[in-house]
C-alpha cells in the first residue's frame, strides 16, 4: 500500500497544507504527505477519479465543492466525502510602497474597472483614466489594476464582493436592471471588466502581480492577505470601506472581501492509507489552525467555528448529498 498521504488541489490552500504537512511529518511517525498544486478544479477532478491507491486522498479547494462534482464523484465510487473548512483567505488591494495611500470603497472599483458605468443616469462606456476621476478623494494616478485572471477563484470573489457590491452601492445596478429588464443580465453587465488595458488579468500568481507592480509602480494589485503580509516592505495595502485588512478584521467580518478555504477527505481511504485521519485532525487542531497557530501567523484567517469542524473530522461526518 502507498505509504504517504496524497493531496492535490488549490494553490491558495497549498502554503497552509505544506506547513501542516511538514509539521505532521516532523511530529508524527507518518511520512510527510505529498501535496500537489494544480488548482482546485484539477485537484477535485483527481479526487473524484475513483477510489484506490493511485487516486488522491485529499483535495484542497479554495471554494466549496459543487453539486455536479459531488455527483461525478459518486458516479466514480467516491461516495463518502468529509468536508473540512480550514479558515478564510482575505483578499486585499495593495500598491507599491512608494505610491500614495488609497482608501477604497467597492463603488470606486466598480467605477474604475467596469466596462460600462452610469454617468448622469445614462449608461456609458467607462472612460475614467485616473483614480481621482472616479472618486475625488483618491490620488491622481492612472488607473491600472492587476486583477486575478479568470482561472483564479479569487476572481469570482473579486467580482462578486467588490465589483458587484460596488455596482449595487453606487446605484448603477438599478440603472442596468432598468435598462436590461433582467436582474441576471444587469449583474453580468456590472461584472464585465473593461478591456482597454486599464484592467490587466493575471493568470499567474501573486508573485507575478508583485513583479508587475514593481515594473509599473502605478499598478494596484489584488493579493491574498498572506502574500501581502509576507511582503509588507514592498506593498502598501489599501483600506476597503474604511477597514484595514487583517486576520482580525476579516475574522470579525468587518473587512468584506474574503472567501473560505476547504479540504475534502476521501473517507473510504481512512484506514487504507496510514495517517489520513490523523492528518485531518492535526490540520484543524487549535495549535495549528487556531488564531495563534502558525497558519494564522502566515496569514490564514482562522475559522471562528473551528470547534465544529474539529468535531466533524473526529466523527468522520460525511457530506450529505
Amino acid at each position, binding site marked *: 500500500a502507498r505509504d504517504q498521504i496524497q493531496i492535490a488541489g488549490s494553490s491558495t490552500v497549498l502554503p497552509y497544507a505544506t506547513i501542516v504537512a511538514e509539521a505532521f511529518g516532523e511530529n508524527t511517525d507518518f511520512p510527510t504527505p505529498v501535496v500537489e498544486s494544480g*488548482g482546485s478544479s484539477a485537484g477535485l477532478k483527481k479526487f473524484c477519479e475513483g477510489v484506490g491507491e493511485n487516486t488522491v486522498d485529499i483535495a484542497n479547494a479554495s471554494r466549496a465543492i*459543487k453539486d455536479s462534482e459531488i455527483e461525478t464523484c459518486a458516479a466514480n465510487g467516491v461516495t463518502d466525502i468529509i468536508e473540512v473548512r480550514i479558515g478564510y483567505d482575505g483578499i486585499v488591494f495593495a500598491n507599491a510602497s512608494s505610491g500614495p495611500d488609497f482608501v477604497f470603497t467597492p463603488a470606486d472599483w466598480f467605477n474604475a474597472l467596469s466596462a460600462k458605468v452610469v454617468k448622469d443616469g445614462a449608461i456609458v462606456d467607462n472612460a475614467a483614466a485616473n483614480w481621482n476621476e472616479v472618486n475625488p478623494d483618491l490620488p491622481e494616478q492612472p488607473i491600472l489594476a492587476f486583477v486575478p485572471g479568470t482561472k483564479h477563484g479569487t476572481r469570482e470573489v473579486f467580482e462578486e464582493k467588490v465589483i458587484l457590491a460596488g455596482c449595487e452601492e453606487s446605484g448603477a445596478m438599478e440603472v442596468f436592471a432598468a435598462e436590461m429588464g433582467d436582474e441576471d443580465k444587469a449583474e453580468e453587465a456590472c461584472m464585465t471588466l473593461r478591456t482597454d488595458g486599464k484592467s490587466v488579468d493575471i493568470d499567474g500568481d501573486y508573485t507575478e502581480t508583485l513583479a508587475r507592480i514593481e515594473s509599473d509602480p502605478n499598478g494596484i494589485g489584488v493579493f491574498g492577505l498572506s502574500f501581502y503580509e509576507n511582503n509588507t516592505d514592498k506593498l502598501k495595502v489599501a483600506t476597503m470601506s474604511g477597514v484595514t485588512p487583517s486576520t482580525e478584521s476579516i475574522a470579525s467580518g468587518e473587512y468584506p472581501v474574503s472567501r473560505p478555504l476547504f479540504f475534502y477527505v476521501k473517507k473510504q481511504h481512512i484506514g487504507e492509507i496510514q495517517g489520513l485521519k490523523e492528518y485531518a485532525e492535526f490540520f484543524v487542531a487549535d495549535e495549528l489552525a487556531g488564531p495563534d497557530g502558525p497558519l494564522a501567523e502566515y496569514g490564514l484567517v482562522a475559522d471562528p467555528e473551528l470547534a465544529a469542524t474539529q468535531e466533524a473530522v473526529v466523527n468522520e461526518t460525511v457530506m450529505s448529498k
Partner: protein
Amino acid sequence: MPLSWALLASLLLAVAGYLIGRSRAFAVAGSDIRSLHSRPIYHGASVALMTLTPAIIVMIAASLLRMAKALSPEAVGLVGLLALAAGIAGLGWGITRIGAGYQARNVVERIVMGVLIFCSSIAILTTAGIVLSLIFETGHFFQKYNWLDFFLGTEWTPRFQGNSALGILPLLWGTLYISLIALLVAVPIGMFAAIYMSEYASKRVRGIAKPAIEVLAGIPTIVYGLFALITVGPMLRDYFAQPLGLGNSGSSVLTAGLVMGIMLIPFVSSLSDDIINAVPQSMRDGALGLGSTPSETIRQVVLPAALPGVVGAVLLAASRAIGETMIVVLGAGAAAKLGLNPFEAMTTITVKIVSQLTGDNDFAAPETLVAFALGLTLFVITLGLNIVALYIVRKYREQYE
C-alpha cells in the same frame, strides 16, 4: 519486484544464449566460416533474441492484462515464472536451429526491424492516446457549449458564474502572432549563427559557441518569462510603445515574441549547423572554384542542399513556440484579444489550456472542459500546417550526389 527479477533472469539467459549460439555456430562451421550463411555472432544474437522476445512478450501481455484488471496483482510471481519458461523454451528452440544454412542474420535483422517498426509506431500510439484522452472531454464540452460559438466566436471571457464566451479566434490569433514574431527572431538569428559556426568559425570558436548557445534551450522558461516581464516588457513600453503612441502595456505580443525567439535560437542553430556541416565539401568546392564568395556558396548551394533538415529545425522551433506557456504568460499577458498592435497584450491557446486546467472552476463546467477542446483544435490546426510544410519540403528538396 518479481517481474524485474524475471527480466534480469531472462537477460542473463539471453547472454548465455548468445554465447552458446556463437560457439555452436563456430563448431558447425568448422574450419571454413564462409560455409555458414551468417556470421557466428548473428547466430548468437538470434538465440539471444529468441530467448528474450517470448519472455518480454509474456511480461508485456501480463502487464496489459493487469492494467485491464483482468489479472490480479498477486499473479505477478506466476507471470515471472511463465516469462522465464517462455524464455527457456525460446532458448532451446533457438539453439536447435543453428546450422550452416540457417539465415541467422536475416532472422536477427527481421527482429531488429520489428523493433524499429514498433518504435516508430509509438509515435502513432502517442497520437492515438492524445486524441483519445482529449476527445471525450471535448465531446462533453460541445454538449455544453455551442461549437459554432467556439470556432467562430471572437470573444474569450470565461466566467465563474457560467454564461462565458469561449471563442477560440482571439487565442488562435494570439498563438499565430506570437509564434510568428518568435520565428522572425529565431530563424534569422539561428540560421546566421548556424552558418557562421559551420562555415566561418574556427573549430575552437564553434566548439565553444555551439554548446553555449544550446544552454539557451536549457534555461527554464520561467527565467525567460521573468526576463520578459521585468526587463524587456518595460523597455519596449518606455522606448517604443509610448513614444509611438501604441499603448502603454507592460506586456505585449512583441515582448513575448522577442524573448521566445531567443529561447528558440538553439533549436534552429544547432540542428541546422549539423545539417549544413553534413553537406559534402565537394559541393562547396564546386561553387568556390567558380569564383563565388563563401556567402554565395552558402546561399545558393549549401543551404538548398541542406534544406530538408533546416526546415525540420525550423518546424521544431515553430512547434516549441506554439507549445510554450511561461514566456507568454509573463511576457504577453493573459488577455485574449484580436488585434494587430504588437504592443498590446495577447495570449495563446496553450496558455489558456494550462490556465483553464489549473484553475478553480468546476471541473465539469465548460470553462474547464474548453481546455480539452482547445487542445484538440490546436492539434488539428498544427496537423494542417505540418501537411503544408511537408508538401513544401517535398517540392523544394534537392538531393546531393
